[in-house]
């Protein structure tokens, strides 16, 4: 069986593609500020309160600090070298190394996003499959799915804050835990943390369900009309058998969909974190963008791109295992 060899080849090709994408993204990240009008150093100095007449000596100091006085090719190499040393620069806004700030924000993103994405995928596919099979239910469910998928994540988050948080007062809606708490492994803290987690989670989870359900619904309808299902039907296969086969074929494109959707979800996650003031990368990005803290902005860009690339890569590998067509392509060489 040429499975292992074929899989290795597939893995190598994918790794190559993602590596190129990573190189491209990092280069873009380096190039963009240099293509833009204006001088970031001047902007940062104005931000840091040393504005007024531009101080030449201070300006040169900063230029040397960030290596802007060197030739462009050298700046490019320096950028890569510091990147591999984990040096993402220094945030003017938070007055701390960018990597440290990001390290503290990252767990909050994972804690909200991972469950929201996985659970919405499961529930959305389930609801979509139901709608695909049952025409009566579909009549009402389909418009609801489209309405859900059309909502801006942050607007739905605002509605949640207003209804559940403010009007009903059931759950807290600001931050990841109460200001009086200190993060620790105590029952009090965990309960408080979970209470703060529910609304941001629901904000992402609910809106995401819509697009998964639409995708699954369409796939199921398509599969149920396919020739193989008709054939099974003609052979007298039970309805359960038919839907089982249709479901297995319909779920495969949904796995690829997961990879493609990840990039789009980033927008929703950033804006939702802003509404709930949840201390993840989203709030960092907003603060960095508003105060023109370019190193923090670049660091956050890099983090999101790396996360999306890694997730895509993982999904590609999972896909290779579950899709018989990809599997077949190894064994045939």
């Amino acid at each position, binding site marked *: 069986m040429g499975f292992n060899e074929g899989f290795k080849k597939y893995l190598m090709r994918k790794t190559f593609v993602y590596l190129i994408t990573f190189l491209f*993204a990092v280069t873009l990240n380096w190039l963009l*500020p240099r293509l833009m009008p204006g001088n970031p150093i001047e902007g940062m100095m104005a931000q840091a309160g040393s504005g007024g007449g531009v101080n030449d000596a201070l300006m040169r100091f900063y230029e040397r600090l960030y290596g802007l006085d060197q030739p462009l090719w050298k700046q490019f190499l320096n950028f890569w070298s510091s990147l591999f040393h984990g040096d993402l620069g220094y945030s003017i806004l938070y007055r701390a190394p960018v990597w440290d700030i990001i390290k503290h924000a990252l767990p909050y993103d994972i804690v909200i996003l991972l469950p929201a994405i996985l659970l919405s995928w499961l529930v959305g596919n389930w609801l979509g499959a139901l709608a695909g099979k049952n025409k009566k239910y579909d009549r009402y469910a389909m418009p609801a799915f*489209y309405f859900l998928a059309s909502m801006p994540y942050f607007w739905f988050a605002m509605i949640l804050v207003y209804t559940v948080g403010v009007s009903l007062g059931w759950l807290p809606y600001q931050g990841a835990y109460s200001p009086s708490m200190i993060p620790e492994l105590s029952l009090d803290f965990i309960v408080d943390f979970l209470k703060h987690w529910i609304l941001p989670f629901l904000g992402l989870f609910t809106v995401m369900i819509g697009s998964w359900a639409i995708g699954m619904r369409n796939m199921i309808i398509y599969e149920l009309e396919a020739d193989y299902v008709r054939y099974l039907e003609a052979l007298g296969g039970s309805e359960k058998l038919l839907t089982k086969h249709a479901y297995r074929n319909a779920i495969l494109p949904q796995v690829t969909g997961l990879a493609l959707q990840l990039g789009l979800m980033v927008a929703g996650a950033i804006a939702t974190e802003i509404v709930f003031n949840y201390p993840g990368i989203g709030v960092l990005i907003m603060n960095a963008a508003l105060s023109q803290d370019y190193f923090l902005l670049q660091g956050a860009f890099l983090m999101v791109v790396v996360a999306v690339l890694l997730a895509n890569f993982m999904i590609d590998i999972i896909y290779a295992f579950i899709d018989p067509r990809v599997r077949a392509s190894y064994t045939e060489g």
Partner: protein
Amino acid sequence: MARRSKLDTVKIAFRNGKFVLGFSVLMFFIVFSLVGGLFTPFSGDGLYYERIPNTTVKIATYSHKVLPPMSNETLTTYLGNKVRVTHILGTDAFGKDVYAQLVTGLRTSLWVAFLAALIGTAFGITIGFIAGYKGGWVDETLMMFTNIMLVIPSIILLILIAAYLSARSPEVQAVIIGITGWPWVARAVRAQTLSLKEREFVSLAKLSAQGDLKIIFGEIMPNMISYVFMAGILQFSGAILASATLDFIGLGPTTTVSLGTILQKAIAYNALQFGNWWWFIPPGLIITLIITALFFVNLGMEEVFNPRLRRGGE
């Protein structure tokens, strides 16, 4: 397969319930954005302006109060005139009329999305055509680039670019959204081109020694109009969402209001905590309804062009 005339296609589309529903909602909002301002004495920025007689100088009058929808109040202007006004959707934390801002904001958002969709679609078509028609290494290079752009989250790129620009007009925003939205179109157009270029009528055109450009625009393009149009609709809805998100983060146009900037202001001035629902529910609802309508237009068109998708009985 006999080619249907364009008029027939339009007729069939208007017999499709989903298409008609989506199209009507969309038309309603477009018309509303153009004439909605006629129903309020307030200017687009939510203020009441009065011209000083015999000059061109206009002076604004504030309301000073946060009022719920359909409130009436009497404003005393700079010149001492008393004007009775109705705030159809109430006022915001600055006493500005929400309805008037909504009309202008909607117009801005539609304009940004229209321009961005136009730019993104034009760019995508060009790349997709060249890749599909030329093939070989040109195709591979372009598709590699397209796939790279597809994986990098465009919102992050948008934020990065927008943050570097201190003055932003709606047009600038449209350009930066347009240049990140094209990869989907490029892929779809390429796939269509690949299948169309093998057809007889293209071979025939090649045999009669027509130039590449003439074949692309004269033979292949007319067969893809519907497809390109549908891609453009999706670009439009993506652009509305992208611009609203950018505005919400605080990177929207600095020169005018849009639906996204209204929402951003609402959050920044605690409309949620104070319960000023008329400030943040209408703009978001309009965005949602427009995107839903675009989905339905797209669904309807798909059913028109691909009758297999029509579910029996309806």
